[in-house]
């Protein structure tokens, strides 16, 4: 794209990062008292909020109850003010439904649903500001919220996006880099075992480059894990001091 250099000759990106560098991540757990679990995450300028209710009795149709495991219900919503152009429908449109399905697939792989048969776990994610990497921010926020709710999980689920420009793999794309039209990959990883919960790409990429892009995304996801791990341990330490004994 003329006029916009996604990767300079010295190896710097548009916002001054290196190819494999992540944006600044800040996260908080327990932001809402009325929900079972909640978390807020900022990845650069992308801000996402996640709220978890459950496990609880299935409301509405009893027929949806699974006899041997819990039902995971995810809903994605992006605020009307989250993008540059004001969005008409915050939720219910195709992209939101697809995101919801992807989140559900991701968390069904990580949450130990066999422990809670016939119940339902609700995960609601809202994006307040979208600057690229919304799926990754949603997954990271939802992981923290699920942990806050005390729902048993196999491991953290850490996600990151990756792209490919000038034969270099870039990690954690911002909106400018996503809009440039190159291939983008979203990866959700369970860091301890290295298992992939979700891998999604919707552009064309030569298979020779897939390995390097995947590797960059995996490395970035592990870095995200390090940061989230620190946040959770700090939160657990604070809370255990307050509970005393």
């Amino acid at each position, binding site marked *: 794209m003329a006029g916009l250099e996604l990767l300079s000759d010295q190896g710097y990106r548009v916002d001054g990062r290196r190819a494999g560098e992540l944006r600044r991540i800040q996260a908080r757990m327990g932001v809402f*008292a009325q929900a*079972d*679990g909640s978390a807020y995450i900022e990845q650069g300028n992308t801000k996402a909020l996640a709220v978890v209710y*459950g*496990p*609880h*009795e299935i409301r509405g149709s009893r027929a949806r109850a699974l006899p041997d495991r819990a039902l995971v219900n995810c809903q994605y919503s992006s605020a009307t003010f989250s993008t540059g152009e004001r969005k008409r429908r915050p939720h219910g449109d195709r992209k939101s439904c697809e995101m919801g399905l992807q989140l559900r697939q991701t968390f069904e792989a990580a949450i*130990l649903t066999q422990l*809670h*048969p*016939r*119940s339902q776990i609700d995960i609601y994610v809202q994006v307040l500001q979208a600057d690229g990497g919304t799926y990754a921010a949603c997954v990271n926020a939802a992981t923290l919220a699920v*942990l*806050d*709710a*005390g*729902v*048993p*999980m*196999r*491991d*953290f689920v850490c996600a990151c996006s990756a792209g490919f420009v000038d034969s270099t793999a870039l990690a954690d794309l911002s909106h400018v880099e996503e809009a440039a039209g190159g291939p983008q990959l979203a990866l959700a990883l*369970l*860091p*301890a*075992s290295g298992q992939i919960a979700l891998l999604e790409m919707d552009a064309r990429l030569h298979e020779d480059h897939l390995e390097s892009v995947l590797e960059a995304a995996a490395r970035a996801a592990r870095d995200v894990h390090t940061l989230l*791990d620190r946040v*959770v*341990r*700090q*939160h*657990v*330490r*604070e*809370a*255990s*001091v*307050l*509970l*005393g*004994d």
Partner: protein
Amino acid sequence: MAMEMRLPVARKPLSESVGRDTKKHLVVPGDTITTDTGFMRGHGTYMGEEKLIASVAGSVERVNKLICVKALKTRYNGEVGDIVVGRITEVQQKRWKVETNSRLDSVLLLSSMNLPGGELRRRSAEDELAMRGFLQEGDLISAEVQAVFSDGAVSLHTRSLKYGKLGQGVLVQVSPSLVKRQKTHFHDLPCGASVILGNNGFIWIYPTPEHKEEGAGGFAADLETEGVRVSTEASLRTSSCLLLAMKWNWGALWSPGRTLRVPAAEAPSFLPSLAVSG
């Protein structure tokens, strides 16, 4: 006149200021607790490739050969003998479904309910048809846990005069992990309010009745007459104190002496005393 002003600063982490070494093994999901296969795994753990791995974020508790991880915040897990306060959500054929802030709704069987007048007889078809006359959707009850089903659902009973439908009062919802198991969960505060500390985190504060009614069987919930002004006000004040305490995370609730334990560093300039009178 000079005034001192300070810009808002981030609160110092409590663990540093209190200076207490927690001595607890804190884990997050994915952490290996032990590779020793001699241990039995309890709640909050799972077995993965010869290792015991934590599945919730919390502290590790070891009892002899059993290792479990106690999560900071969970839904209520019923144990036999607990006192709970719950809300009726459904009226089914021979039972009521009660919402008790647990993973599945609790069950109150018709046969576990006291009949008015304290009669002891088999429940007939007329009793089944009159179920809605006893308890409707939205009613609050206090009950005791009779049994726990295999999937974790809890079966309640109200086979004592002290349990049953609750009348006028205020409900405060807190996390179940904050309510400790004590010998008695029904307390009369000196300020004129009475408290039922439900193990499921639902706390019911109501004005102390002037005389204890006998033989009511817990059905006659007096919703009509207004309570005596002083004790109603006392119950409202108590609930406000409780909500304030929960908002500021003032630690566990336990009954002896009605004290709320407060970490020293967090104690504010005033302490709501639950012994306030009038």
